C-alpha cells in the first residue's frame, strides 16, 4: 500500500520534527531505527470506526471516536479536524477494552458543508 508507506515515512519525519520542537537532548532518533520501523508497522484494526462531532455553538469542540476494538487499547489516538482554513487537533489514550474516546480539540473549527477528520492510532 503505497500511501501507507508514505505515511510511515512521514511518521519518521514527524518524530524528528517533534524532537526538534521539544529540544529533548536526551533523546535521539536515528534514521536506522525509523527505517526498521517501516518494516514492522501494522494496524490495530480495520474496523469501521464511528466519528461524531460534538458541537459548541456552531463549532466542532470535540470528536468522539467509537467502535474501537479492544485490540487498540492503550493506543494513542490523534485527531485532526479541518474545516475550511481552520484545523483543530488533540489526542487521547484508548482505554482498556476499547470502546469510544472523546478528543477535545485545541482549536474549534466552524462547521461548514463538510469537514475532514484525520485519525491516527499509534500503538498499542
Amino acid at each position, binding site marked *: 500500500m503505497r500511501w501507507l508507506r508514505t505515511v510511515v515515512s512521514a511518521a519518521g519525519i514527524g518524530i524528528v520534527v517533534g524532537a526538534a520542537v521539544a529540544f529533548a537532548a536526551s533523546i535521539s532518533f536515528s534514521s536506522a531505527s525509523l527505517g526498521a520501523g517501516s518494516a514492522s508497522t501494522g494496524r490495530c484494526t480495520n474496523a469501521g470506526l464511528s466519528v*461524531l462531532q460534538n458541537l459548541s455553538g456552531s463549532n466542532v469542540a470535540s470528536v468522539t471516536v467509537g467502535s474501537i476494538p479492544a485490540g487498540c487499547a492503550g493506543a494513542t489516538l490523534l485527531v485532526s479536524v479541518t474545516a475550511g482554513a481552520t484545523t483543530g487537533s488533540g489526542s487521547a489514550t484508548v482505554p482498556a477494552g476499547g470502546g469510544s474516546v472523546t478528543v477535545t480539540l485545541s482549536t474549534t473549527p466552524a462547521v461548514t458543508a463538510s469537514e475532514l477528520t*484525520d485519525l491516527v492510532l499509534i500503538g498499542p
Partner: protein
Amino acid sequence: MTGARRLALTVAGLLAVSGAMTLQVGAAASLSVGSQQITPYRSCTITATPSSTTAVADVGVREASAGTNFGTATTNAVSSAAAANQRMYIRFDLTQCSPTIPSSSTIRLATLRIYVSALPAACRTIDIFRSTATWTETGITWTNQPFGTTLNNPASGSRTGSFNVGTPAGCQNLAAGYVVGATVTTDVAAFVGGTSNFGWMLRDDVEASATTRTTTLSAKNLGTLAQAPQLVITYT
C-alpha cells in the same frame, strides 16, 4: 497534492505533536514508533448547513397531497397511515468532501444521521432504500417519486438498512435526537466506486397502518445546526 500525500503530511504533523508530548514526559527509550502499529483513518462529515446549501437535498413526499412538493418544509416525516403515508428522500453530494474520497479507498463506515424530533407511540421500523433514479428537492412529489406510488414498494428485503424508532422501552431510538443504526456503508462504497448517487428513500417498513404512526425528522430548512442532517464517512 494527492489525497494520500496530504494525509501523510497530516499524519506527520500529528506525530510531530505526539513526539513532542512524549518527549516532555522524558521517557526517552520508550518512544519507539518503529515497533508500534500506526492505524490511519480519514473521515468526511457532510452537514446540511447552511439551510440554503445544495450539498444536501432532503424532502418529504405525502400520499395525501400527492401532487405537492414539500422541498422547503422545515420537517420531513416517515409515516404509515391509511391513505396518508409519508416518505423521505435525502441525498448528499459526496464531491463536497475535500480531498475527494479516492475511488480506490475502502469505505469502513458510512452513517446517515438524521434528527428525530417526534416519535411514534409504537416502535416502528424505518427502511432505507438506495434511490435508483434522479429526483430534485423542489420537484419531487408523491406522484412522481422514483419508487412510484405503490405502497410497501420496494420490498423490505431490498433495503440498504433499517432502524427502529418509537417511545416504547426497548425500541432502538426512543427519544428525540439523532437516530442510531442508519448505516449506509455499502451504498456509499458504491457511490465512491462510480455508481450514480441518487440518495436514499426512507419509508415505514409496513405502510398503510390503520393507526397513524409518524416519525418527524428535522429538515435542513429548519436551519438548526444541532439537528441538521449529516452523512459521516470513514475510510482508509
